[in-house]
């Protein structure tokens, strides 16, 4: 096991930031910590890394107790912080070389690793640039390169895609998957459920300092009653028809606005057939039909009663 956290409690005065938090991460996983802002993700990471004192519990990394002086453990961890932690006065190359140098003292080996990291994040053309000359996306890539250049076994990425354009985000996510393919175990904290769904092999949903659910995305979705959401383009629908649609089996909610009928179902079978069958029977013409399975937001909503992005 790469990380084993047991009953972690962290308090700030009366506020309980982590409430008997447990976490187990296996080698080779991309583990997602998903939760809204303030749910305790970063606090958990900081406690795991011994950056914060905690009140209770144990943290083990690579089956050894983690502490501020556990330099052997730290040597195998790569950190990509939420805030971009680079020196504004050093060039792209110098920044990566500096952070890699904290882990790798041998100059020749380090030069090779820095080169590989630059290749990995695609910053070859920007090696001599100062960070202030880089766009937001390139800065994020530099931040990642600084965290992973020394080829750690465990990489912790704390919201690495905040305020990044979609293209850069895709590049970053692809890069994370490649790091995982190269053998690194990854912890990925985010409040973007699409990202977690896209890359994580297992996900923990956090709220108020607690783990409210853990599992693969399929396991998480199977925990809830919420089923698919079907949207149908319609020219017109009167209130009587809308009322009757709400009476169809397993429908929990139905709305019609802007020529779109949106129907939410609980878990069940033949929901699409039942809905389209009704429209056909009533001779209601319809256009395109969309069916969306439940998302992690639905999981979070059903478990906590809140939206992930609240």
């Amino acid at each position, binding site marked *: 096991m790469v990380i084993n956290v047991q009953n972690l409690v962290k308090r700030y005065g009366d506020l309980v930031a982590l409430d008997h938090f447990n976490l187990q991460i296996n080698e080779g996983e991309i583990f997602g910590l998903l939760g809204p802002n*303030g749910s305790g993700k970063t606090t958990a990471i900081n406690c795991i890394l*011994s*950056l914060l004192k905690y009140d209770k519990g144990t943290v083990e990394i690579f089956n050894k107790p983690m502490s*501020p002086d556990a330099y052997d453990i730290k040597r195998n961890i790569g950190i990509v912080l939420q805030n971009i932690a680079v020196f504004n*006065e050093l060039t792209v190359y110098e920044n990566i070389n500096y952070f890699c140098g*904290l882990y790798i003292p041998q100059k020749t080996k380090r030069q090779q690793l820095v080169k590989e990291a630059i290749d990995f994040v695609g910053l070859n053309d920007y090696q001599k640039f100062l960070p202030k000359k880089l766009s937001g996306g390139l800065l994020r890539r530099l931040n990642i390169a600084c965290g992973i250049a020394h080829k750690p076994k465990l990489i912790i990425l704390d919201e690495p895609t905040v305020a990044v354009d979609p293209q850069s985000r895709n590049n970053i996510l692809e890069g994370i998957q490649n790091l995982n393919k190269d053998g690194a175990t990854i912890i990925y904290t985010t409040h973007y459920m699409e990202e977690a769904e896209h890359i994580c092999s297992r996900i923990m949903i956090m709220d108020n300092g607690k783990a409210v659910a853990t599992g693969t995305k399929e396991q998480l979705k199977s925990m809830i009653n919420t089923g698919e959401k079907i949207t149908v383009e319609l020219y017109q629908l009167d209130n009587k028809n809308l009322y009757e649609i709400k009476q169809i089996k397993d429908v929990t909610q139905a709305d019609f606005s802007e020529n779109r009928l949106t129907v939410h179902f609980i878990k069940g079978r033949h929901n699409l057939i039942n809905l389209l069958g009704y429209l056909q029977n009533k001779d209601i013409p319809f256009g395109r039909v969309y069916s969306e399975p439940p998302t992690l937001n639905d999981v979070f909503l059903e478990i906590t009663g809140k939206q992930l992005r609240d």
Partner: protein
Amino acid sequence: MKVFSACLKITKRRATSIIIYLVLFLALSVLLTSISYNNETEQFNETNAKISIINRDTDSLLINGLIDYIKDHSEYIALNDNKQVLQDALFYHSVDYILFIPDGFTDSFHNNGDIKLQKTIVPDSAKGYYADNMINQYLSTAKLYYDTSLNMDEQTIIKNINNDLSYETQVTKKIFGDSAPIDQNFLVYYRMMGYILVVLIILGTSTIMLVFNRPDLRMRNICSPMKLRSINFQLSLSTGTLAFIFYLFLVIFGFAFYGSKLAGADIRIILLLMLNMFVYTIVSLSIGFICGIFIKGANTQNAAANFISLFLSFLGGVLVPLEFIGSNVVAAAHFIPTYWYVSALNKIGSLTNFTWQSLSPAFIDMLIQLGFAAAIFSVALVVSRSRRQSNLSFYGNKTEIA
């Protein structure tokens, strides 16, 4: 030594403001040295009083001889015998001394009469005493000749009086020791370093500490396997190196600019001045450290550097010599290290021999400076530690709950 080399690179990239300060301050110090001292203090000049003579007696040989003598040994100012004119001249210091020769003075002088010379002088003027001496000297000599040289004609007497009084005391400035005295401009330059060193070192130290105390970078460094002690050691080493570079540059600049004036100067005095400045560099480094703990941004950095250095310099006698500062302020100045730097500097500058007895006062001043440095470093450590303990984290980073 990644942290050390990064510190030097960072300082190099942010050196512009430091270089601007350096150029400005060096220009300022050169300017101040040129106006604060001139070589007249190394020479001797006879003091001449401005004297006016109002002769209400007849033009006797005695009186003409006296007037000629006074004209030769003072700055003679001709004035009309008018009360208003004479009063104005004294009030506006056009003259220091007005000598009135009353009617019948010559006869009275020869016959031991009661008519005396009269005078009006600027109150409390030292030059009045010089003039009194000069006139008394002339008249005493004249009296002696008139009373004792009965067969001598009056013209010969006057000639003899002038001849006797022409003997002047030759004044030679005595320099103790084998070497020339240290150039005063060089001393003023070193005094100015009491200001410049503090500014530069506060700016340099806080530049490095500002960068490395950024919470995200600090956290990132702490996450690495490099020991915190090693990081702090390399940070200290880099600030120390920077301070030493400043010291070395300023010493070299001093030699480059004032080297030609140091020919024949005692090398031991120059070495002691350098040692004193080195000690003050350590003091400045300690001040830079404590500033680095409190400074949070570039704006406060410049403000703090200027405020602290000016405060220390004005109070410590760098910008205003201690002689011109009130006794209460001087008493308070004992509690700042700059005072002891200037004190040691003055003592070194006036050294004429190098016995332990003459050197020890300067060394004691240097030791007091080192004491200040140790105290300031200790306070910096205590503040740093208490700030860490007051926070919730292992390393003093306040981390948001997220």
